[in-house]
C-alpha cells in the first residue's frame, strides 16, 4: 500500500557491518548479461525458443520488415525533398517489434520517435505517421490507438506516462503503459525523477530503453558511467531486465515478462541492447563521430537476417514468402502515400482551436487579425507560399 503511515523499524536500516567493504556497492567491471535466444548467425538451441505459435513467429518477421521498408521509403522521400526530417529505426527493428509483441493492444504506448512498426501495430495509421513527419498537426489526433504523439522533447513523456499508469492501477484496469525511451533519456531529470516516483506509487509501467548506443553523436560512455541502463532500476526500487535488442524472440519474451511484473505493481526498466545503423535523423552525418568498422560489426548482427535464418530453419519462411511480403509492404506504403496526397489540411483556424476547451477572447481576436491580414494579403502576398516546405 502506498503512502501508509511511516512505521520505524531497526531492520529497515540494514545490518551493521564491521568493515566498510561489506557496506560498499559496486557495479563491477562490465555490464550485466543480456538475455539472448538467437546467436548473430541465427543459430539457436531449440529448447531455448520461447513459446510463440507459428503464425506469431511469422508475424514478428513481417512487422520487422514493415519497419525496415517503410523507414527506407520515408528516407527516400526526404532525400527527394518530399518529406521533412525523418528518424528511423534501422537496426533496431527487433527491439521495436519485440516490445510491441510483448504488449497487449489495450495497453498504452508512449513513443519518442523511432517506433513506427509498434505504433502502426497499435492502431496508428501509416497515413498519420507520414503526416506527422510532414508536420501536419492533424497527425497527432491518433484516434483509438492508445498512444500519444512522439515525445520529441526528450524525457518529457516519462512523468506523464507514470501518471497515466498510476491512474490505470487506481481504476483497477488490467493494462500497462509502455514508454519507449532512448539511452540518452535516462540522463534527463524528468525521466529519472519519474521512474523513482513510479516505484512509490506502484505504477504499472515498463520503461523500454531502446539502447542504440548513441544519443545523436554521444556514445553510451559519454552519457553515463554506469555499465548498463538496466542497473539504474535498482536505485529506484524497480526491476531491471536486459536483453539482446537485435534478437526479436528474446525481446518479445522479455517484454511479456516485464508486462506481468508491471501489472503486479513492480515497474520495470527493460533495456534492449541494440544499434542505430542509420543516422540519428536524415539531418545527421554519423561519419563525423563513429567509425565505419564499428558500424560493420553491428551490420553483421543485423536483427532481420538473423531472424530470417531462424524462420528458414524452422521452415516457416521461404523466398516466395519474402517476395510476396515485399510486394505487400510496398503496396501498403503506396496506399498510405495516396491517402496523404488526398488529405486536406485545415485552415488557420486549426492553429487557434483546442488551445483551451473554449477559445479565449484574446485568441478570437488574434484569429480575426490573422484572417483580416490574409484576406488583404493572400498567402502573405506570396511570402508564405514561397517558403521552403521541407
Amino acid at each position: 500500500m502506498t503512502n501508509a503511515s511511516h512505521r520505524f523499524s531497526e531492520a529497515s536500516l540494514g545490518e551493521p557491518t564491521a568493515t566498510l567493504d561489506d557496506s560498499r556497492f559496486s557495479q563491477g567491471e562490465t555490464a550485466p548479461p543480456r538475455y539472448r535466444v538467437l546467436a548473430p548467425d541465427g543459430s539457436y538451441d531449440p529448447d531455448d525458443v520461447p513459446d510463440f505459435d507459428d503464425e506469431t513467429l511469422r508475424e514478428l518477421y513481417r512487422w520487422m520488415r514493415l519497419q525496415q521498408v517503410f523507414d527506407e521509403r520515408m528516407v527516400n522521400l526526404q532525400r527527394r525533398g518530399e518529406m521533412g526530417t525523418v528518424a528511423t529505426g534501422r537496426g533496431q527493428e527487433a527491439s521495436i517489434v519485440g516490445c510491441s509483441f510483448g504488449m497487449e493492444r489495450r495497453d498504452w504506448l508512449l513513443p519518442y520517435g523511432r517506433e513506427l512498426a509498434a505504433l502502426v501495430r497499435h492502431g496508428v495509421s501509416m497515413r498519420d505517421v507520414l503526416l506527422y513527419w510532414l508536420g501536419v498537426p492533424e497527425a497527432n489526433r491518433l484516434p483509438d490507438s492508445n498512444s500519444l504523439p512522439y515525445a520529441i522533447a526528450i524525457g518529457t513523456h516519462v512523468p506523464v506516462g507514470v501518471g497515466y499508469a498510476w491512474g490505470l492501477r487506481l481504476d483497477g484496469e488490467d493494462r500497462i503503459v509502455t514508454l519507449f525511451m532512448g539511452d540518452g533519456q535516462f540522463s534527463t531529470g524528468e525521466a529519472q525523477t519519474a521512474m523513482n516516483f513510479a516505484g512509490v506509487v506502484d505504477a504499472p509501467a515498463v520503461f523500454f530503453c531502446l539502447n542504440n548506443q548513441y544519443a545523436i553523436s554521444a556514445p553510451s560512455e559519454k552519457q553515463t558511467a554506469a555499465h548498463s541502463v538496466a542497473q539504474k532500476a535498482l536505485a529506484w526500487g524497480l526491476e531491471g531486465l536486459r536483453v539482446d535488442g537485435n534478437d526479436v524472440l528474446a525481446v518479445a519474451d522479455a517484454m511479456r515478462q516485464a508486462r506481468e511484473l508491471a501489472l503486479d505493481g513492480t515497474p520495470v526498466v527493460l533495456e534492449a541492447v541494440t544499434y542505430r545503423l542509420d543516422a540519428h535523423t536524415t539531418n545527421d552525418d554519423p561519419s563525423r563521430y563513429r567509425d565505419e568498422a564499428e558500424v560493420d560489426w553491428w551490420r553483421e548482427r543485423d536483427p532481420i537476417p538473423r531472424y530470417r535464418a531462424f524462420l528458414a530453419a524452422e521452415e516457416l519462411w521461404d523466398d516466395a514468402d519474402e517476395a510476396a511480403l515485399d510486394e505487400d509492404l510496398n503496396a501498403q506504403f503506396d496506399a498510405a502515400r495516396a491517402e496523404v496526397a488526398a488529405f486536406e489540411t485545415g485552415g488557420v483556424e486549426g492553429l487557434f482551436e483546442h488551445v483551451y476547451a473554449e477559445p479565449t477572447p484574446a485568441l478570437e481576436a488574434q484569429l480575426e487579425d490573422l484572417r483580416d491580414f490574409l484576406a488583404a494579403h493572400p498567402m502573405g502576398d506570396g511570402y508564405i507560399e514561397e517558403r521552403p516546405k521541407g
Partner: protein
Amino acid sequence: MTDRQLTLVQAVNDALHVAMAADDRVMVYGEDVAEQGGVFRATEGLQDAFGSERVLDTPLSEIAIVGTAVGLAMQGHRPVVEIQFSGFLPPAFNQLVQNVGRVRWRNQGTEAAPMVVRTPYGGGVRALEHHSESFEAAYAHVPGLKVVVPSTPADAKGLLLAAIRDDDPVLFLEPKRIYRSFREPVPEGDHEVPIGEATVRREGTDVTVIAWGSMLHYALEAAESVAASGVEAEVVDLRSISPLDRETVAASVKKTGRAVVVHEAPRSGGFAGEVIASINESAFWHLEAPIERVTGFDTPMPMLAMEDYYLPNPPRIADAIERAVSR
C-alpha cells in the same frame, strides 16, 4: 447557505473538502500534504476524510508531481497537486510548457489534462531564501494554461472550485502573505467564482489601480490614503492573469483616464507590461497621462532582511497614484 468567517487558507481547505466530497475523481497530492496537512495546513484533514489513495504524500519532485498529474488527468482523474512554495515550481516549468498546457492542442482536442497546480506564492512572510518568488508572468506566457490569483477568502474558495471543475489546466497562485491576515464571510458548500473575470474592489473616478493577490490590499490601502487629498482611485482586482479580463480593465481606464499597475514580481517582463499593452490597444485615446507601474525590482527576490525594500507597499503605490494624477 450560510456564510462562515474564514481566512484565505481556511477557504482553500474548505474548497478542497467540498471538491473532494462532490467528485470522487478529485485527488490531492504533493509534498507533506497528507499526514501533515501541508506546511500551511491548506490540505489539513483531507486524508482522514478521503483516504490515502486520494490524498497522499509524494517523493520530493516537483517535476513528477506536475507531470504525473497530466497522465492522471488525461485518463479521467482530477488531480489537484500542491507545490509547497512557488519558488520551487520552476523545475516543473518544462512539464507546464511541454505537456500541461499543450496536451489538448497537440492532440487536436482528442485528449485534455484538466488539473490544478496549487502553490503559495509571493513575499512578505519573512520566509527563507527561494520561498517568496512571484513568476506569474512566466506562467501566464504558457499557451493552454490558465493562471488564477485570488486575493480574498471568498474568492479563494470560489476560484479554486471553479479551477478544479474547469476543463483546462489551472495554475492557482495563493498569496501567502494574506493566508491568515484577515477573515471574511465565505459561502458554505458549493461556491464558484468564474475564471477570467476581474472585479472592481473600490470605485473611483480619477485613476484606475490594477493589482492582484496580496498587492490588491496594499492598493486598497493606498487608495484610502490618497482619498484624504481628494483623489478617488478605482481598484481593479484581476483575479485571473490568464485569461486576462481586458474588458473590465479597459472599461475602468476609459472612465478614469489614468492607470497604475502594481505587482511584486520584477519589473522588466512583468505582467504589468501585458496589462499596459492591453490598455494601449483598448483605451489609448482615453489616457490623460502615462501609465505608472509599481513593482519589485529586476533583482532576485531578496532575503527576508531586505524584502520590505523590495516589495511594493502602500506609500509607494500612493506615490505612483499621485504621479499619475498630477500629469
